[in-house]
Every structure is written in C-alpha cells, then in structure tokens.
C-alpha cells in the first residue's frame, strides 16, 4: 500500500537536546553526532545489536576526545585574537573555560 508517512515512529521522531546556562556539553554533542552516524534498529537480531552498541561505545570515546580537542583549539584561537586586540582580561576568562 502506498502511503505518505511522517517519521513519527519511535526511531523516527526528532530528538531535542537542551542545556542550561551555556551551550551543550561535550557529551551531548557526541550523542548528537552518534545518533547521526549509527542508528541501531530495534528489530535487529540481538547479536548484531550487541556488536553495534559495542562499536558505538568505542567511537563515542574517540569522538568525545576530539570534540574536547576542537573546543580547546577554538578557545585558543579566540584567546589569541582577544589578547592581540588588547583585551587581556577577556582572553584570560576564555582561557580558563
């Protein structure tokens, strides 16, 4: 049967992620990325599911470290930009984040 369908099943719905008093945490960003990279079907055979979740956890660690690294690099660039512009106090605040 042909049908027009909206992704409204359990795995098809949107995912909303929020934060308080700042941006998303590294863990939240990693979860967002992982959901895009690897989707494990609820209907997958248990053995496949287990392997998929193991793989997901492995890449979670790699992603986490690189998300953290990326944020540090960006802060370093911002710090230098602010310092060069004479805003040493702001640069120090950013450096300490």
């Amino acid at each position, binding site marked *: 049967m042909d049908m027009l369908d909206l*992704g409204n099943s359990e795995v098809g*719905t949107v995912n909303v992620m*929020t934060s308080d008093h700042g941006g998303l945490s590294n863990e939240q960003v990693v979860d967002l990325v992982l959901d895009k990279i690897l989707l494990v079907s609820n209907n997958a055979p248990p053995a496949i599911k287990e392997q998929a979740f193991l793989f997901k956890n492995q890449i979670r660690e790699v992603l986490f470290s690189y998300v953290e690294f990326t944020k540090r690099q960006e802060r370093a660039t911002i710090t230098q930009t602010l310092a060069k512009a004479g805003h040493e106090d702001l640069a120090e605040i950013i450096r300490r984040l």
Partner: protein
Amino acid sequence: MAIAQAMCTAFKKELMLGTHNFATNGNAFKLALYAEGSGGKSSTTATLGATTTAFVTTGEVASSGSYATGGGTLTKVAPSTSGTTALTDFADISFTTATITAMGALIYNDTNSNKAVCVLDFTSNKTSTSGTFTVQFPTADASNAIIRIA
C-alpha cells in the same frame, strides 16, 4: 492532546498542487516552537495536529536568545530516494542563549503563505534556561526521515 505529531492533511493536498518546493534553492521552511500550558506567549496553549493548515501564533514560545517568534529558518537537504521511498531532510537547528520551554514544533513554508507542513510532538516539555535548544532530525533514510513518501 493539544500537540499531536502529524503530517498536515492540507500539506498532502498542496504537494499534489506543487505548492511546496524542498529543493535547496526552493522555498524557505521554518520551524516554530510551541508550548502546552505555561511557556507560550501570554500563557496560551498550542493546538496543532493533522488539521493545522498554516503557521499560528497561539501557543508559540516567546522570543528568547537566538529564537525569534516565527521560528528559525531550516537548512534544507535536497530530496532524495532510497529504494522506493522518496524523502527529504533538514539540518539540525539550534537556538542559543535561549530560555525556552516547548512541547512541540511546526514546520511551515515561509515562502508560500506560511502553509503548514508537519507537526512535531516532543512528547514532554523540553526546557533550556539561558542555554541551547537543539532539534535534531532523524536519520535521513527510508525508515526514519522526517518527511518521506513510501
């Protein structure tokens, strides 16, 4: 339920009329956030579902941070096919430094008279306080994409 996830019935008809163009250089689509109970503008409650025909202000959350009433413009991903299913997708959208409580969202066509596309039900209130409010769209495949024709 005041906010019920659905593809709007009017949208299905309008697809047949060629009203909506999801190509990357096509129409502009927006996502507006809505509240049930407190959290909306003037404490109004949104009523959204299959019968919604266009963007409404009732129950929309107030402007906060980078969220302005009317919602945020979505970045389209060109429609594609997977097997016998046609699908389209949007890039995830984030509102920053925002204090928002939302129970759902409406995607609508900003180019064509704010005509409604679909209603998203978050199933529970999602809240950001001076923070980031992100809506992540599902994997763009034949089984999960946000809008698909099978």
